C-alpha cells in the first residue's frame, strides 16, 4: 500500500501490485458509458464505477455472437465487473448485469437520445480517470432507472440529471437568488456566464429573458419537486431545456455530440 504526500493511505497501483507479487484484480460496479471497437472482435468500454471513478477497459471478443459477455457491456448497462488492472487499459475478466437500463431504453428513440446525453455528460464531467465520483455515479444510476421506468417525460428526467450532475461537480445553477449580488427572488434574466438568474441591476449584456414558469421549473427539477415539474407546460419545458443545454456546454467547454440528436417530445 502506498501513501500520498499527506501520508493518507491510497489504493495500490499496478506498479505496487507487480512489485509485491499481488494479482492486480479488482471488483466494482458501474455503468457502461461508451464502447469503442478495437481490433477484430474486441471493444474498449468506458465505465463510470462506484468506487474507482471512470475507467477504460478492454473487453476481449465481445463483438463475437458467441462472446461470454453477450449484452452485458452495452452502453447504459449497470454491471458488476471484475477487472484486471493494466498499465494503460484494464481488462474485463467477468461481468454480470445488475440492471439492463440501456437495453430497455433502446426500445424508445426519444428516451435513448436522452440517455445518450446523460452518458456523455457523465463521461465529460469526470475529467480524470480513476478519480472516484460517487455522487455522480448515483445520480446517473437514478436517472437511467427513471428513464427506463417510462413514468416521466424523458426531457424532464434529462434536465433534472444535468442540473444535479452540474451541482455535484461544482457548477450549481443559481435559481433562487441573483448569481452576482445574491439578491433573493426568482429573477427573469438568465446569464450562462454569470452562473444562473441575474437581477435587473446585475444583468450583463447577452443575458436572455426567461419566463417565471421556466425559472420555477428549473428550481423544481433541481430540488426534486416532481409533482410541480410534471404539471409544467411543453413550452416551458423547451425553454428550460434550452437554458440547461447552454449552461452545460458553457461549463464543459465542449459541444456534446449527442445533444443535437436529442428528441424532446
Amino acid at each position, binding site marked *: 500500500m502506498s501513501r500520498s504526500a499527506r501520508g493518507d493511505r491510497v489504493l495500490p497501483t499496478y506498479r505496487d501490485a507487480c512489485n509485491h507479487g499481488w494479482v492486480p484484480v479488482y471488483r466494482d460496479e458501474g455503468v457502461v458509458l461508451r464502447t469503442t471497437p478495437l*481490433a477484430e472482435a474486441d471493444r474498449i468500454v468506458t465505465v463510470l464505477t462506484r468506487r474507482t471513478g471512470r475507467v477504460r477497459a478492454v473487453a476481449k471478443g465481445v463483438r463475437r455472437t458467441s462472446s461470454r459477455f453477450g449484452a452485458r457491456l452495452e452502453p*447504459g448497462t449497470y454491471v458488476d465487473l471484475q477487472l484486471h488492472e493494466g498499465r494503460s487499459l484494464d481488462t474485463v475478466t467477468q461481468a454480470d448485469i445488475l440492471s439492463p437500463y440501456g*437495453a430497455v431504453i433502446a426500445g424508445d428513440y426519444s428516451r*435513448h437520445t436522452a440517455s445518450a446525453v446523460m452518458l456523455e455528460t457523465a463521461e465529460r464531467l469526470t475529467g480524470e480517470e480513476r478519480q472516484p465520483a460517487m455522487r455522480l455515479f448515483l445520480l446517473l444510476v437514478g436517472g437511467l432507472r427513471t428513464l427506463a421506468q417510462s413514468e416521466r417525460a424523458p426531457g424532464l428526467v434529462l434536465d433534472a440529471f444535468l442540473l444535479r450532475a452540474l451541482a455535484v461537480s461544482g457548477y450549481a445553477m443559481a435559481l433562487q437568488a441573483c448569481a452576482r449580488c445574491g439578491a433573493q427572488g426568482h429573477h427573469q434574466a438568465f446569464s450562462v456566464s454569470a452562473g444562473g438568474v441575474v437581477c435587473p441591476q446585475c444583468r450583463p449584456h447577452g443575458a436572455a429573458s426567461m419566463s417565471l414558469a421556466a425559472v420555477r421549473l428549473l428550481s423544481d427539477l433541481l430540488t426534486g419537486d416532481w409533482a410541480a415539474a410534471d404539471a409544467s407546460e411543453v413550452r416551458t419545458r423547451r425553454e428550460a431545456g434550452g437554458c440547461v443545454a447552454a449552461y452545460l456546454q458553457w461549463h464543459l467547454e465542449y459541444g456534446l*455530440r449527442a445533444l443535437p440528436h436529442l428528441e424532446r417530445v
Partner: protein
Amino acid sequence: MYEGIVQDLIDELGRLPGIGPKSAQRIAFHLLSADPADVRRLAATLNEIKDKVRFCRLCFNVAQAELCRICSDQRRDPEQICVVEESKDVIAIERTREFRGRYHVLGGAINPIGGIGPDDLHIRELIARLADGTVTELILATDPNTEGEVTASYLARQIAPMGVKVTRLASGLPMGGDLEWADEVTLGRAFEGRRVVA
C-alpha cells in the same frame, strides 16, 4: 527512419485501420521481398477499386455499375427488403441462402454519442423506396446491440404509418453455448421469441 520510398510505403500502410507501425513495417518488407507480379496485381487492384467500385443507386450496397448485382437480378423478390447496417452484412445474410428479397444498406447505425443521427444514414432513401407500394415486408437486420436496436426502433416508428409489415430478426441464444452463461437480456429475448415445437 528508412530512406525515401520505403518509409513512404510504411507511413501509408500505417494509416490503414488496425495496422500499427510494426505491422506496417512487416507488410512493407513482405512486399519488397514478394514476387513483382504479385505486387503489381495488388497495385492494379488498388487502382481499380477507386475507379470502378461505387454504391448502388437503390440499395447503397457496393457495386460496379449503377445497380448492384442483387438489385439488377429480376429473380429477386421485390416485395421484401432486408435493412442492414453495412455491405458486409449483406454478404453474411447471402451466405445463409435463406433470403431471396432485396436489401437496403443504411451505412451505419444511429449512435448519438458518436454524433450519428438518422439524417446521417440512408433512411430517407429507404422511405422513398417504400412509397410506390411494391414492398410488403421490411426486415430489420441491424446488429443486435444498443445502436442496432435503437435504429430498428426508430425505423419501426417511422415506417409503421405507411402500412408496410415491419419485422425484426430474431435474437436469442447462440448455437454451441451453455444456458448458464447467457446474460439476462439475451435469455429474456430468447423467451420472448420462443416457438412452438409440438
